[in-house]
């Protein structure tokens, strides 16, 4: 690190002109950090309390920045994901850094490499905490650097530093190196970075941070790689954060914690994080096994129960900001070829993507699956899409659609070593890995023929999360119709609070479509607060209590839902500008096939798909033909100003 340090400061007169010295709005740091990688410039930008109340943070703030700033210079369409004018927004929210459990979060918003459309994906750790105590609510990055740089933030010291020596390092090595170099350990430094997969622009590269937290969807790591930004390193700031009602905030935080610990809907999450998903989802036919070729797990699936998944490792809690969940853990492998290695305990999606989907289902493979999951985090590949790619290659090789010669080696079901070799090929774009690095949809289209019919993807270029959605229709419909390439509605959480039924028939397409449309709003609200999805599994009323205590506002659950739907409509307008049409709201053939065995055997979502789409469009108030939010829908959400742009001046 000897050359080309570009130093700028938020305190230089020109930059500081618009930036408020003290936050006027409780709960917020009060400034946005702008970074132009082309001009090697960082500056602080104030945002007003009115904007804070309108946009909150996270996806709410990010969607508006995309809308305002990613239009091409000609005014037609969006800039593409790899254009210098694409924005990479790393946003916190009003609850980030406060004592509500799990509030170290960031939401990454950008034009993603998977769909080339708007995207929103979350991760946790201490990013949000460290950034807000430095005095910023979000980082907005534009431009492209010529050489690798990393962004260093330490209160008012903002520097783009030479990162050429970090190039080629994986995400954990990058954090280790920066910690050593800066002399900061633990949560004194939060580092979010990309590994080789991001550097080599894999379409499903993620941004990974703080040893195991991954913003994984829609190729956000490729966007960071194209900008030649290796890492963002944030020293824990020293500034104060005022809230409107500190005692009320602590009480709301404790009430949320009590709800998480005791409510039957969240208790297992409190005790074991997402680990119980493996066994529980297998009972519903939602655990994806061997690339959707079966839904019948081996008889010994009880060996994959949550307590057993923890038994085999030496465990240490590794919680995010202010969090009391028994969720994130660092584990040390006790035996086998990787004995002594430190790994991040996989989420459910790690066990499925790096395990069940690729046929690693034997209990004696548990340590190997956990190890592979961490290797994927270190390379910065989305474990879900890797699972669909790897499982697809395994199936295609078994059936002779992809030959051993084409791939370069034999890859059989459950071969963890082979899967790791494939990961290396993809993240370095070597040989056949260059095709696979384009993501499952583009790779399947390139190979074509019967191989294409085996691949699991959305026509819009996104890949699903790590379930078999032929048994969870809500999520297939949700992602298919979402403008972001991943869930927009999310899982039902206290559905009766927003007037929806507690349960529906999961195989009745119409009921599912009404449900997905009716529950819209909550997720975008959550993803704008700077909180973890798992620590807000309580009523919206409780979350609003915490928000109101932090900010002094008076939000209700209805305001929260309206906010989320308004954000979705803005994202939809950005997506439409980029060429989005309802024609691409489709799952692939295998993804929407009918399960041949297991609990969902014979249930065909494909047969009901068109009807489901019709119902969804009608319920949400979007035009079925063009995908546009109807004028009355926009007006109802307070987006009157968008009507002329979407429908013309006469509307």
């Amino acid at each position: 690190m000897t050359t080309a340090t570009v130093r700028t400061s938020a305190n230089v007169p020109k930059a500081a002109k618009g930036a408020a010295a003290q936050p006027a709005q409780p709960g917020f740091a009060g400034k946005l950090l702008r970074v132009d990688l082309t001009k090697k410039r960082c500056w602080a930008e104030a945002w007003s309390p009115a904007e804070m109340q309108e946009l909150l943070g996270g996806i709410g703030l990010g969607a508006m920045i995309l809308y305002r700033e990613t239009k091409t210079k000609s005014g037609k369409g969006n800039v593409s994901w790899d254009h210098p004018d694409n924005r990479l927004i790393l946003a916190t929210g009003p609850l980030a850094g406060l004592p509500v459990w799990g509030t170290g979060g960031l939401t990454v918003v950008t034009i993603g490499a998977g769909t080339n459309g708007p995207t929103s994906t979350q991760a946790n750790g201490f990013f949000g905490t460290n950034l807000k105590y430095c005095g910023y609510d979000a980082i907005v990055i534009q431009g492209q650097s010529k050489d690798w740089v990393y962004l260093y933030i330490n209160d008012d010291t903002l520097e783009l530093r030479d990162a050429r020596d970090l190039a080629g390092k994986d995400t954990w090595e990058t954090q280790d190196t920066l910690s050593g170099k800066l002399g900061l350990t633990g949560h004194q430094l939060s580092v979010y970075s990309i590994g080789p997969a991001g550097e080599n622009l894999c379409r499903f590269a993620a941004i990974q941070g703080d040893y195991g937290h991954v913003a994984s969807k829609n190729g956000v790591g490729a966007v960071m790689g194209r900008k030649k930004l290796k890492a963002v390193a944030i020293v824990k700031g020293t500034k104060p954060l005022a809230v409107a009602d500190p005692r009320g905030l602590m009480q709301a935080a404790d009430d949320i914690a009590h709800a998480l610990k005791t409510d039957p809907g969240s208790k297992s999450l409190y005790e074991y994080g997402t680990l119980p998903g493996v066994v529980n989802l297998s009972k519903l036919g939602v655990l994806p096994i061997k690339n959707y070729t079966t839904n019948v797990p081996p008889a010994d699936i009880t060996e994959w129960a949550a307590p057993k998944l923890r038994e085999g490792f030496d465990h240490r809690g590794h919680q995010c900001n202010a969090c009391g969940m028994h969720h994130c853990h660092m584990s040390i492998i006790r035996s086998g070829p990787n004995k002594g290695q430190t790994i991040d305990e996989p989420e459910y999606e790690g066990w499925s993507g790096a395990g069940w989907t690729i046929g690693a289902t034997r209990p004696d493979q548990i340590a190997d699956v956990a190890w592979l999951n961490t290797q994927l985090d270190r390379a910065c590949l989305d474990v879900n899409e890797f699972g669909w790619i790897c499982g697809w290659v395994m199936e295609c090789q078994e059936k002779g659609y992809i030959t051993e010669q084409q791939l370069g080696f034999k890859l059989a079901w459950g071969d963890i070593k082979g899967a790791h070799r494939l990961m290396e090929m993809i993240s370095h774009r070597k040989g056949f890995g260059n095709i696979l690095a384009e993501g499952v949809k583009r790779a399947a289209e390139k190979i074509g023929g019967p191989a294409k019919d085996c691949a699991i993807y959305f026509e819009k270029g996104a890949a699903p999360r790590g379930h078999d959605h032929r048994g969870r229709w809500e999520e297939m419909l949700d992602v298919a119709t979402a403008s972001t390439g991943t869930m927009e509605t999310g899982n039902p959480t206290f559905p009766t609070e927003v007037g929806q039924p507690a349960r529906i028939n999961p195989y009745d397409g119409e009921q599912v479509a009404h449900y997905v449309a009716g529950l819209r709003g909550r997720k975008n609200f959550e993803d704008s607060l700077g909180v973890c999805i798992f620590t807000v599994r309580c009523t919206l009323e409780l979350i609003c209590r915490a928000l109101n205590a932090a900010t002094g506002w008076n939000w209700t659950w209805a305001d929260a839902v309206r906010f989320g739907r308004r954000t979705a409509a803005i994202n939809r307008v950005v997506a439409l500008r980029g060429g989005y049409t309802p024609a691409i709201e489709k799952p692939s053939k295998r993804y929407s096939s009918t399960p041949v065995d297991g609990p969902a055997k014979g249930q065909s979502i494909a047969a009901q798909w068109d009807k489901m789409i019709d119902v969804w469009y009608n319920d949400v108030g979007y035009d079925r033909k063009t995908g546009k939010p109807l004028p009355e829908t926009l007006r109802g959400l307070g987006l009157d100003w968008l009507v002329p742009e979407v429908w013309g001046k006469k509307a």
Partner: protein
Amino acid sequence: MKVLKITPEKCTGCLRCELACSYMQTGQYQPAKSVIRVSPFEGHTSYAPYTCTQCAEGWCMTACPVGAITINVAGAKDVRDDVCVGCKLCTIACPYGTAFYDPDTRKAFKCNLCGGDPACASACPTAAITYEDTATVDWIGDFAAHRAGRLLETV
């Protein structure tokens, strides 16, 4: 006397204690001004909070040239802001590094057990920090002896 007891094995490094402490001590959330601080060990896999042990023989109190450190109702050594001249002698005298200096106020500050209801103990979600009566006030000595003995057994 009741003191803060720390069980490092239970700490997960969530830093909620720092948030609660800073609010109680300063009226704002500002972990940089917390008087309980969490340190990482063994790479990034273990954490332990540490704060003033309220030593029976308070070296901070002995060292203070103006008598600004007194014993409050909870039995804690407490800095009197109106007397402290900000000379930092207490921060040097403290063998545990738990007396601090605030460049904004130009005063020393340290754990005062929140006057008998420590915010860190209430905030800790894993009970790694508890507020309890202990047989010996200088419990950290016992803790160190126990810990060292355990480590020696494994050698």
